């Protein structure tokens, strides 16, 4: 794998700016102080001023001749001038800035039309202010289908069935980029699963109904009772549980309509309720998180209603439907109160169910969710058994959970003095003398090279090839997953190393081979940053065992330095340097969690909100529970845009 980069800069974070330039709607905003609001207003004014005085003239002078109405190279600056803060314009700005920065643009055909270095610098710096041209916007709350895991948990919570009942559904990944679609082949699965749930929960003819059935359907009505009335009461309670909010009258009418349909077909009372229940189970209101009521269409941005908020919160932290307490708070309209919401976040995180947060979010963040399918060369790594894979994953889950539970600083993720192991995993740590048995337990670590995700087998293995480590991948992983920087992909048509050198590469060590990247300008910009970080972890082999020599018997050289120029000689020292960057670590986690919680990429206005959260998170020493709480109580999480 050859990664290199075409720009000498790493763009800081992958935020895409923009959204719709429309009326700037000012709304009272949760958790925003007056001071913050006036700061923001000043920055917005400044951004508009810079745009008008510097950026627009620069574009008019140097760019618009080629990038106007018939834009060359797909960069259209005419539309970008018209709506500078929109999402589509941002892509054009980003390209323009990248090219101007490296002197690729404007072309040097006409020397009188070449900007000064100072003008170039100003143009490039302006991109950081672009976010202040984006209007205030929490983004839409695109309704989404429950994921496979959430759906299984929901059926378990409501009806006591095993969550494995949804096993026939395809696996999927929640969060940013989650897909709602299902194929024709899968589309009937929901009806099929509903049939199966019904079959498991309801008693066969002649048998006594179990507790769940009694709870769902109530007592059998006495002779002469109005069965439609009874059915409507049952529908009310079934729908309230399943829709996670009170059903509307018209929704009840639909369900009672299904009851009538069954009665017309000569089904008895219980069988008719069953068909009605099945209708609940295949309703979009059950399978999707939907708003409780129609909102006043005069407003373009509204708060989530309390029920929607309860669902969003509970599926985020538990991958499960809101429990009675959350629903009761929603019913009273209390959940929207910041203090109530905060204490509910605390309550949900304290509960064992919050381990779901690692499975849905943490594993994606650390990029370890492919471990189960990953291939290891069986000749080189015979010790990789299903048990070991499971232990590796459990270690990460337990470690993530402990940092959250103990509300430690985000720094603890990269630098800690404890972890969780069992016997098979202890062998990778060289601790097999003291650890026996399959049970995972917390151990103190005396070795400073271990502790934290940089020295953890699951991440070290996930960044490796089947037969060897990949310093390049590890370097990219540290920069992207840990520090939140964005490493561009290699440019197209990058010449291969062998052609570059025209030499025989046999006999070079992995380090020497990889360092060839740095002797070639097109590769060097990125690889001089990536590779040394990756080599800092070379003492860990492809499954995370310590080694002093590589497979060819050559001593490991793990010296390197960060882009800042600070050097390190061991994994422990690398860890130490990363631990010093607590603000970057915290921002990365905050942005990733926010994108995951909203189910979308972050864009223009989001960045302003994140800036604000970061100030408060820093004040509380970058504690992880604080980060989670700030995300959940943020304007973005608690509001939605209706129509642009």
């Amino acid at each position, binding site marked *: *794998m050859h990664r290199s980069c075409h720009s000498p800069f790493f763009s800081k974070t*992958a935020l*895409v700016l923009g959204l719709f330039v429309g009326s700037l709607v000012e709304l009272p905003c949760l958790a925003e102080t007056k001071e913050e609001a006036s700061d923001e207003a000043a920055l917005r004014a400044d951004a508009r001023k810079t745009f008008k005085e510097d950026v627009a003239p620069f574009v008019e002078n140097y760019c618009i001749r080629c990038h106007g109405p018939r834009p060359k190279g*797909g960069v259209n600056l005419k539309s970008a001038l018209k709506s500078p803060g929109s999402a*589509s314009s941002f*892509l054009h700005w980003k390209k323009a800035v990248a090219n101007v920065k490296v002197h690729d643009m404007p072309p040097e055909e006409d020397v009188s039309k070449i900007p000064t270095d100072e003008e170039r610098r100003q143009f490039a710096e302006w991109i950081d202010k672009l976010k202040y041209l984006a209007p205030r916007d929490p983004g*839409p709350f*695109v*309704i989404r*289908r429950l994921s496979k895991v959430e759906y299984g948990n929901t059926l378990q919570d409501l009806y006591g069935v095993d969550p*494995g*009942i949804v096993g*026939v559904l*395809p*696996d999927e*990944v929640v969060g940013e*980029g989650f*897909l709602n*679609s*299902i*194929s*024709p*082949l*899968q*589309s*009937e699965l929901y*009806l*099929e699963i509903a049939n*199966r749930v019904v079959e498991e929960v309801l008693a066969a003819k002649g048998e006594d109904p179990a507790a769940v059935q009694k709870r769902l359907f109530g007592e059998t009505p006495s002779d002469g009772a109005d069965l439609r009335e009874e059915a409507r009461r049952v529908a009310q309670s079934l729908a309230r549980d399943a829709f996670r909010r009170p059903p*509307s009258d*018209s*929704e009840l009418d*639909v369900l009672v*309509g*299904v009851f009538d*349909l*069954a009665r017309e077909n000569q089904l008895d009372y219980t069988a008719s309720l069953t*068909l009605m229940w099945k*209708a609940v189970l295949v*309703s*979009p209101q059950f399978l*999707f998180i*939907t708003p409780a009521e*129609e*909102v006043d269409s005069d407003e373009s941005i509204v708060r989530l209603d309390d029920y929607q908020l309860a669902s969003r919160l509970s599926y985020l932290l538990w991958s499960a439907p809101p429990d009675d307490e959350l629903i009761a708070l929603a019913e009273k309209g209390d959940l929207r109160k910041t203090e109530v919401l905060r204490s509910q976040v605390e309550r949900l995180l304290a509960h064992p169910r919050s381990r779901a947060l690692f499975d849905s979010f943490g594993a994606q963040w650390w*990029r370890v*969710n*492919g471990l189960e399918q990953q*291939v290891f*060369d069986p000749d080189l790594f015979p010790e990789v058994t299903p048990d070991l894979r499971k232990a590796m994953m459990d270690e990460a889950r337990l470690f993530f959970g402990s940092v959250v539970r103990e509300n430690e600083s985000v720094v603890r993720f990269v630098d800690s003095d404890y972890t969780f192991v069992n016997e098979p995993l202890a062998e990778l740590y060289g601790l097999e003398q003291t650890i026996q048995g399959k049970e995972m337990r917390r151990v103190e670590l005396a070795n400073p090279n271990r502790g934290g995700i940089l020295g953890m087998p699951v991440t070290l293995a996930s960044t490796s*090839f*089947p*037969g060897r480590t990949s310093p390049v991948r590890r370097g990219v992983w540290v920069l992207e997953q840990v520090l939140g920087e964005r490493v*561009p*992909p*290699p440019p*197209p048509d990058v010449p*291969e190393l*062998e052609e570059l050198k025209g030499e025989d590469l046999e006999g070079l060590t992995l380090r020497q081979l990889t360092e060839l990247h740095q002797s070639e300008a097109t590769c060097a910009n990125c690889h001089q940053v990536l590779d040394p970080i990756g080599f800092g972890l070379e003492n860990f082999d492809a499954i995370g065992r310590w080694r002093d020599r590589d497979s060819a018997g050559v001593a490991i050289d793990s010296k390197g330095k960060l882009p800042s120029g600070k050097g390190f000689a061991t994994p422990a020292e690398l860890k130490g340097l990363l631990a010093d960057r607590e603000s970057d670590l915290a921002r990365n986690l905050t942005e990733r969690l926010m994108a995951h919680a909203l189910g979308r990429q972050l864009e223009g206005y989001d960045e302003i909100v994140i800036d604000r959260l970061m100030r408060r998170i820093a004040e509380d020493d970058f504690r992880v529970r604080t980060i989670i709480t700030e995300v959940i109580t943020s304007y973005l999480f608690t509001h939605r845009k209706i*129509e642009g």
Partner: protein
Amino acid sequence: MKTPSAHSFLDRRNFLRGAGVSLALPFLDSIVRTVGASPVKPPVRLGFMYMPHGVIMDQFWPKSPESFLDTPPPALEALRPVLDQCLMMKGISGVPISPFNGAPHALELSTWLTARLPDSETRSRVNIAISADQVMANYVGAQTLLPSLELATMPQTHKENQEGLHEAYYSHCSYRSPTQPVPAEIDPRNVLNRLFGKRGKDARVTKASPLDRQMLDHVIGGAKDLRKTLASDDQQKLDEYLDSVRSVERRIAAIESRQAEASLEKAGVSTKKRHAADSPPIEIKIPEGDKRSEYMQVMCDLNILAFQTDTTRVSTYIGSTPNGVSYPELGFTDTHHSTTHHNNGEEKVGKVAAITKFNIDQYAYMVKKMASLREGDGTLLDNCIMMWGSGLEDGNRHSRENLPFILAGKGGGSLHTGRFLADTKGNQGDLLSTLLSCAGVPLDRPVGIATKEIEEMKA
């Protein structure tokens, strides 16, 4: 291989238990074609099978049109017995990927059947184009139990964001609409159960009753009120779900009519009888181990069975997605992607050649089996067009000026096979448009970047 989790289809699992249990499907004997008079000219079916990362060119391209049949290139060795029923063409170019130069692997699969680039202004969402298979599904899908069949051998959950493009581009080739990728099924048991679940007490599919159908009608009707409370993006999501509910309704109706037809046939009054000489439906053996060849072949078998029984007329089969599958059966564990960046080094070139041959061998397994099954006046393959291909030519350089692909089957007499056309002028969209035309699908607009149909392909 993945197995369904513990509580799903316990009964069915018992039924399937045991290594390589041969699963007879006697009930399929009574399956009848759903359209046309007796015995009808079989419909043309179109199947696509994918391998990522390109080929080793001098092992893949035939030396000359003249040598194609007698001395085929090494990669095609397994196809030798059916080469007279194959068509190869060099010169079909892929969609140029600028401005997404950093996303060769996100685009190789997603442009393969759409012949179009994603929308660059909304790249964080899925917004590309309907794919050729779904164009066909729209036209013929209503005539079969399933409008289209999507198969794969890896979960489509890979998260890799290239050039800011939505992750789904990385692992999906089939798009029902510009914004709706169609997920593929990776578990052969699920496919078997879904498509050919045996009748009786255990069968969920056939158990769905007319009453369920009417119940779904109520649910769809009731969603109209919900729709009003949603923003337009949300309405679209809701509509996608309701569409899928509608397809369930239609499927229940199709099963009802199929059952009615079967009982008519039993009573000797059917007018839509299968051709008496047609081969019986093939048997499906679910492999027990985790050999990739067996896994790929059982998916091939399911594709064959779906075509043979006219359960669907268009399929896609993603042999693997671009995120690094490996082939321990070939004696090495390097991932596919890493070997393709071979820098012309002998060892890695050899590995890529072996992987390519392995994939073509599985495809050859499928088309040779289809050629052995009688249908109408000829064979099943005669009435199909099976395309195997990749979205890159040279994985080392990510080039796609000459997309590598093989066509097998005569498409009901529409395709002129047994040839290698060494210098075809055309692009990916032209190719797909021509294939759809050969499959009898009238096009109201070209596929992707197409400008024409390639007449020299046709019989």
